[in-house]
């Protein structure tokens, strides 16, 4: 059986770094990106094929696409994301602040997947994935706040639904993953251990197919309600 290949975009720390470790341990060939060489070097040392990528930079995405020309990818996870300043009240949120979050969390994953579609078409599993959040769920929101982050993840959910419909004829499964509340710098290291979250998400990645396209699936296998 041909070895499965995945690209993790945003792998220098936290959930992305753990994805690299666990996918390698599961026998996948792992391509991984970091924003700079200091992030890329440890990925190479761990056994991944590492690249530099600033997901919010079109030239950087284009350069990665050129480096990967002709390389089959079974799966892509656009993991890079930011929280923005979660403490800001609505009147203090500037256009630039909200745009920064939307650009990184919503727009950039779409553009990255668009650039890597040829690689997915060469692969077998054809999985196009990015990272959502419970904060994307409007129906679950009973307390407000975290405006830019919520907006970015809800927009991502909607965009990925559209992507799922557009790429269904190509046989590409478009799914968003929800990691849960994980101890990373984005949560001030509160929450569950990253290993637990990624074990769950890896199980999801191993089992999903075209029938799951358009879903937002948690590390626990449960769908995030809209």
């Amino acid at each position: 059986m041909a070895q499965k290949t995945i690209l993790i975009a945003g792998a220098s720390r936290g959930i992305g770094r753990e994805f690299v470790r666990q996918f390698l341990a599961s026998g996948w060939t792992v391509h991984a990106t970091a924003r700079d060489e200091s992030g890329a070097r440890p990925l190479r040392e761990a056994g991944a094929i590492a690249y530099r990528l600033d997901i919010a930079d079109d030239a950087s995405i284009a350069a990665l696409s050129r480096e990967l020309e002709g390389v089959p990818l079974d799966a892509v996870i656009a993991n890079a994301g930011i929280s923005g300043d979660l403490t800001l009240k609505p009147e203090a949120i500037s256009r630039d602040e909200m745009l920064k979050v939307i650009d990184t969390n919503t727009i950039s994953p779409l553009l990255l997947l668009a650039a890597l579609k040829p690689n997915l078409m060469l692969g077998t599993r054809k999985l196009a994935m990015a990272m959502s959040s419970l904060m994307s769920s409007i129906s679950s929101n009973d307390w407000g706040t975290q405006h830019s982050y919520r907006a970015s993840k809800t927009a991502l959910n909607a965009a990925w639904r559209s992507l799922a419909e557009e790429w269904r004829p190509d046989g590409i499964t478009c799914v968003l993953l929800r990691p849960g509340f994980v101890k990373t710098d984005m949560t001030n290291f509160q929450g569950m251990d990253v290993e637990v979250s990624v074990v769950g998400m890896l199980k999801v990645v191993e089992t999903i197919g075209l029938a799951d396209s358009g879903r937002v699936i948690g590390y626990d296998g449960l769908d995030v309600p809209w």
Partner: protein
Amino acid sequence: MRVVVAGTEGATGRQLADHYRREGASVTEVGLRSGSNLGLIAAELGSQPIDLLVLSDNIEAPDCRLADLSRAELQAAFERLTFAPFRLAALLRPNLAAAEGTLVLLTRESAAMGFRDTRGRYLERPFRAAAHALWRCYSIEWAPYAISCVLLAIDDEREAAEIAATIKARTAEVPLTLRDARGGWLSW
């Protein structure tokens, strides 16, 4: 009654402004073309209490494939459909609070997650959906100011009088839910 209708470049906004004017309200019309200075708009409205602020945008984004889209186009769609209504509402919160007023965002059913139509799938749907998320936040966070928030998904042929009647009927919901022009519940 003091009414502000933002987005009167579109038919729905214009018709609503006319409707409220016929009902005897003092109506201010606000254009929200790309590049509008929202701070200036808010400053021109001063500190007058606002009983009803309606934000409407009739834009119908084209059906594009993802490969045909640029970052700049996606960013522009965000600014128009997500940030502009969010920001204008935030600037006018004090005016709404002074009147215990109602804040209304008119949206489209096509922005709901379950909708299968391909229209505006990247340049409209995600950014209207983001605005839905923000309006839910407003409905919760602004309840202490007695500001009512309403989110209505309408189609462009809907009569202004019907929209106005639904607005009036939907002011008590915290947190808000997505409704159609007749007040019927819609899934997010």
